[in-house]
């Protein structure tokens, strides 16, 4: 057994060393390339992957290598089930797995994790996507509203009873707000346009008044006072995770 199985050493970003069989390690195209073109005896550094993640990844590779080689008696459905359980991890771990699978070029793992993320986000709203993946919204208010209006049908989603929750943002997230003629700020939130106080008054306030534009013009306007973090010197952006009544 010793002479037939070659081992490869991998060192992670947190200085953990893993020794794995070559067949398992070369599931990663990156490691395979490095191994075949470099010094086989040295340790391969995988700087961008931590020990925990690499350990999980090696489990995955081992399972798939063994199943393909017939070393493990596992049917395709059972392997599929095993994969489904493998990705039942918390969001951060899943994202780390995606980045590691991409960096190490393990195609099947990348497909599996990306499919998992796709299933996770397919029902989400754009605001949730921005928060989850830390994406900056570079739209102006009018531009975003124009795209939203053009594709109104895509925003027709299931909702709950109307509640309004402010999702807090990172301190340095700024975006432009546009004032209309009455010097009020309009922010687009979900399917509603939320009217806010004028910019000049915002700088001094600890809280702002948020008005919800009613869909039925005869219903009275609803005023909610909400706490707000860190008003900048002029421009703020607030996300409203707003669920509207169907």
């Amino acid at each position, binding site marked *: 057994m010793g002479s037939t199985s070659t081992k490869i050493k991998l060192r992670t970003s947190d200085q953990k060393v893993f020794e794995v069989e070559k067949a398992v390690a070369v599931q990663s195209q990156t490691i395979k390339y490095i191994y075949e073109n470099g010094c086989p005896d040295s340790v391969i550094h995988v*700087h961008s992957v931590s020990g925990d993640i690499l350990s999980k990844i090696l489990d995955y590779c081992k399972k798939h290598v063994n199943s393909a080689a017939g070393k493990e008696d596992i049917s395709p459905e059972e392997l599929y089930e095993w994969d489904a359980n493998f990705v039942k991890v918390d969001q951060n771990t899943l994202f780390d797995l995606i980045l590691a699978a991409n960096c190490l070029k393990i195609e099947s793992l*990348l497909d599996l994790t990306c499919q998992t993320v796709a299933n996770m986000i*397919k029902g*989400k709203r754009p605001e949730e996507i*921005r928060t989850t993946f830390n994406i900056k919204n570079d739209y102006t208010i009018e531009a975003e509203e124009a795209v*939203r209006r053009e594709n109104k049908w895509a925003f027709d989603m299931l909702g709950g009873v109307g509640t309004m929750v402010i999702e807090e943002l990172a301190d340095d997230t700024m975006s432009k707000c546009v004032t209309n003629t009455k010097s009020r700020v309009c922010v687009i939130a979900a399917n509603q346009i939320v009217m806010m106080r004028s910019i000049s008054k915002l700088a001094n306030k600890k809280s702002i008044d948020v008005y919800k534009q009613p869909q039925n013009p005869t219903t009275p306007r609803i005023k909610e006072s909400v706490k707000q973090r860190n008003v900048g010197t002029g421009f703020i952006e607030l996300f409203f995770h707003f669920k509207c009544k169907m």
Partner: protein
Amino acid sequence: MADFEGNNRETLEDDFCLLEDSDLEGDVDERFYELPILSPKAKAKIPVDYNKALKYVDRKEAGLEDVLRDHALHLLPAKTLFRFKTVSRRWDHWISSPLFAHRQTTYFKNVSGLFCQVADHSPSFISFNQDAYGMPDPSLSFFPEPVKVRSSCNGLVCCQGIEDDTYYICSPVTKEWKKLPRPNLYHGAKAAVVLAFEPYVLNFNESYELVCAVTFPDYPVVYFEIYSSRSSSWRVSDTICYELDGSGLHDGGYYMKGVVYWESSSGVILAFGLRDEQYGFLPLPANDEEYGNGALAMKHGELCYIQPRYQDNVCTINIHGNMDMSLKSVINLPYDAGSTFGVCRALGFINGDILILGLGTRVVSYHVKEQKVELISQHEGGACTRYIPYVNSLVSLRHPLIRDKGLIV
């Protein structure tokens, strides 16, 4: 070529490494069409300084957003993608690209819902997930005349005009539609029609075929007339089936892996291979009382037949498979479905695990593993309602490279 950038990037990375621009802000991002920038440093050093090379690979480490763009975005359905156009301008740019639409059509193949139509009324769409699957106009009112939905495949839908039996092909998401020329044979309103559309990664010109099993009132023959989008014309196949009385062909066939299947009331499934244009028969497990309630579907890449059986007020679902359509598994519905709702119809099988059933006026999904029943919709109609499974892809009827860039390919 810019259109191969996605594939090119991966192969180039094997030999070189990419230096990505750190400045990602600013105007509409053209990176999707740019050629990757190669680093001359990495080129020279492998294999001696392989550690240095690996360091370069790490440093170029793609951010999560970029990995998602390249590997996850095209796995999402159309409604979700249109909504995500407002995530950021870059996302809007990626999603609106015609090449992305082609990619999504190739990868996203999940059955997203059912087009539902009672007699000649307007069609409607029953979505399996209202947040993720949808279209701008589910009643397909963008057609110039009222239509009957006949068949759908990977996002393309074939409809037939109610007045004059004209065939149309459309993409419900983009609202593009195309009127087909008249066929050579007379099809009438009852021809068994199946749309066959198989998108391939490198085949940018989406080509599809409309396969019609045409029958004649007094002759026991079946002709096959095929419309090909490549030639934009109809052609009657040389293959003629004399063994079957075509009048019993069930409306609503099934297409899978190059073969078109129709159920026949004479107890067989007629299979027609598109490549060699040969036909064959498979046994149909349904008997007379149950005819019309079963459905062909795909389970783990293989053809199967779902037959609901209703005995002693209990409904069980038989799954048949293999070349002889033998019984492979039986699913017991957890509650008394039949008597309460009248008729139990199989409508589809998703991901090998979720059964879609029509129970009376309701459409329910049954998760086999979790043994969970979910109500999807309740509406008018019943045994006469036609259900056509639909995939929410971004498929476009226009050539992706011609539309905006003015190229002729």
